[in-house]
C-alpha cells in the first residue's frame, strides 16, 4: 500500500520544550484522515511540518514520497494546502485570483473554481479582502479544487464558518474524496464534522499519536451513563479513561465491557446501579479519551 504521508521517528522541539519524541504514523493514499487533539498538543506544528514550513529537529516526514521541507515543484503541484484562517491574497479580486493561480497548474479547472465561487453570487471583480470569512473560504476552496491535487492538507477548515458554509465545504470534500486515489489530511475544531468525513483518526496527546479507523474507534470505545448524588474524586486509570458530570448524570468512557466497568466503579466506591451504555458521537469519544482541558 502506498502512503500519501509517512512520518518516521519525528522529533521536534519548540523553545527548548519537546513537542514530539519519536512520532510515527502513515496516511495511506486514498484515505481521509483526521488529526484530533486538544489545544497545545502540537496539531498546528505537525501540520506546519507536513506543509513544509517547519523543519523537524530529527526524523523524516514524507509527503508523496519527498521530504516535506524540501518538496519539489512537481510534488507541490499535487498538494493542495488550506491554511488556518483561509489564507488568501486579499489584495486580489476573484478574477485576479483565478488568473494568478491558473498559470501555475497545467491541469487547472476554471469551471470548478467559478462553480464554487459563483454560489456566493459575487461579481468577478469583488475583492477577496472585502469578503466575509465564509465567502473567502469558498474562494480558497475553489483555488484548491481547481488545482486537481492528489493530496489535500486542511488546517482547521471550519474556523470561522457557519453551519451552511461548513456543510458546503464538507460536500465538496466528500466529492473530492470519492474520486480515485485522492487523499485528505484534515484538522478541525468541529469534531462532529470530521465524523461525517474521515475514515481514519489520529489522536495526538502529549507528544504521542494513536491511529485508529473511525468505525473501529466508535465500536471499541464506549460511553456509559449512570446517576448518582455523591461522586467521589476520580482519576483516569486503565479501565476508565474519562468522566463527565452534568447534574446527577455521570458519563464514563472506557474500552471495557459494561460488567467490567460496573465492577471497577464499585471498587472505587461509586454507586453506579443504573449504569448503561449510551450512544456516543465522535465528539463524545474525543472528550472521553482526551479530557476537556
Amino acid at each position, binding site marked *: 500500500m502506498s502512503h500519501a504521508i509517512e512520518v518516521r521517528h519525528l522529533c521536534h522541539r519548540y523553545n527548548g520544550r519537546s513537542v514530539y519524541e519519536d512520532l510515527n504514523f502513515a496516511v495511506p493514499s486514498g484515505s481521509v484522515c483526521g488529526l484530533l487533539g486538544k489545544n497545545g498538543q502540537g496539531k498546528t506544528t505537525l501540520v*506546519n511540518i507536513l*506543509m*513544509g*514550513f*517547519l*523543519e523537524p529537529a530529527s526524523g523524516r516526514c514524507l509527503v508523496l514520497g519527498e521530504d516535506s*521541507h524540501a518538496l519539489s*515543484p*512537481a510534488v*507541490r*503541484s499535487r*498538494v493542495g*494546502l488550506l*491554511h488556518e*484562517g483561509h*489564507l*488568501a*491574497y*486579499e*489584495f*486580489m479580486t476573484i478574477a*485576479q485570483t483565478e*488568473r*494568478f*493561480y491558473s*498559470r*501555475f*497548474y497545467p491541469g487547472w479547472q476554471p469551471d470548478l473554481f467559478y462553480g464554487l465561487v459563483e454560489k456566493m453570487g459575487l461579481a468577478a471583480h469583488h475583492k477577496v479582502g472585502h469578503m466575509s470569512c465564509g465567502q473567502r473560504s469558498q474562494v480558497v476552496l475553489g483555488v484548491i479544487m481547481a488545482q486537481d491535487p492528489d493530496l489535500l492538507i486542511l488546517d482547521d477548515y471550519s474556523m470561522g464558518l457557519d453551519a451552511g458554509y461548513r456543510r458546503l465545504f464538507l460536500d465538496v470534500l466528500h466529492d473530492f474524496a470519492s474520486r480515485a486515489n485522492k487523499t485528505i489530511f484534515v484538522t478541525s475544531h468541529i469534531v462532529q464534522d470530521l465524523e461525517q468525513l474521515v475514515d481514519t483518526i489520529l489522536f495526538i496527546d502529549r507528544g504521542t499519536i494513536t491511529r485508529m479507523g473511525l468505525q473501529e474507534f466508535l465500536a471499541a470505545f464506549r460511553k456509559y451513563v449512570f446517576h448518582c448524588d455523591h461522586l467521589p474524586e476520580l482519576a483516569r486509570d486503565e479501565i476508565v479513561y474519562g468522566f463527565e458530570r452534568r447534574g446527577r448524570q455521570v458519563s464514563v468512557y472506557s474500552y471495557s465491557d459494561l460488567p467490567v466497568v460496573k465492577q471497577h466503579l464499585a471498587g472505587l466506591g461509586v454507586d453506579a446501579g443504573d449504569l448503561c451504555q449510551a450512544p456516543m458521537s465522535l465528539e463524545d469519544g474525543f472528550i472521553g479519551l482526551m479530557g476537556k482541558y
Partner: protein
Amino acid sequence: MWRSIMLKEWLKLRWAFSAALVLNAAFCLQILLDLRQQLAAEHAEMVWYQMIHLHTLAQHGMRYAPLLTGIALAAAQFVPELLGRRMRLSLHLPVSRNRMLLYSLLAGLLLLVSVIALIALLSAATMRYFFPVEAVWAVQRSMLPWFLAGLLAYLGGATVLLEPAWTRRAILVVVFGVLIRVLLGGRGYDWFTAFWPWLLLPAPLALTGVFESARRFQRGGI
C-alpha cells in the same frame, strides 16, 4: 508563470509606486522652481559661485527621496506577505523558491529603478536648463550614492521583513543602516565618485540576504 508573479507584485505595489512617482516628480519640480526663483532674486554670478565653487547641490534636499522610495516599495511588497504569514501561499506554488523570489524582486526593482530614472531625468533636465552640461553630469554623479542608498533600502527592507527572528532583524537593520548612512553622508560634487566600484559591492550581498531570509522564513527560522 512569471506573468502571474508580476501581476501579484504589481497589485501590491501600484499605489506605493504611483505615490512615489508623483511625490518625486513634485520634489524635482520644486527644485526647478527654487532655482528659477534664486536666479531671479540674485545675480547669476552669485548662484554660480554657490553652486559650483561652494559645491551647494540644488538637489541636496531630496537626497533621502530614493531611500524613502525604496523603503516604501519594500514595505508595500512584503508587509502583505507577512500578515498571517501569507508568504506561505507563494512558497507552496509549484515553482522554486528562489525563482519565485527573483521575479518578485525584479518587479520591485523595476519600479524602483523607474522612479530613480525619473528623478535622474528631471534633475538632468533642470540642470541643463540653467547650467552647462558639465554641471549636469557632476550632479548626476553626485546623486548616484543616493540612488544606490535607495536600492539598498529596498533590498534591506525586503531582507529585514522576511527574516523571521527579531534579533537577526535588529542586526540587519543596523548593518543596512550603517551602509546607507555612509552613502548619504557626503556633501558637494563627486565626493564618492572615486570609490564607486567599492560602493557597488553591498548590492549583490544584499540580494543574497533576501534569499537567505526567505529560506529561513520557509524553514521556520532555522
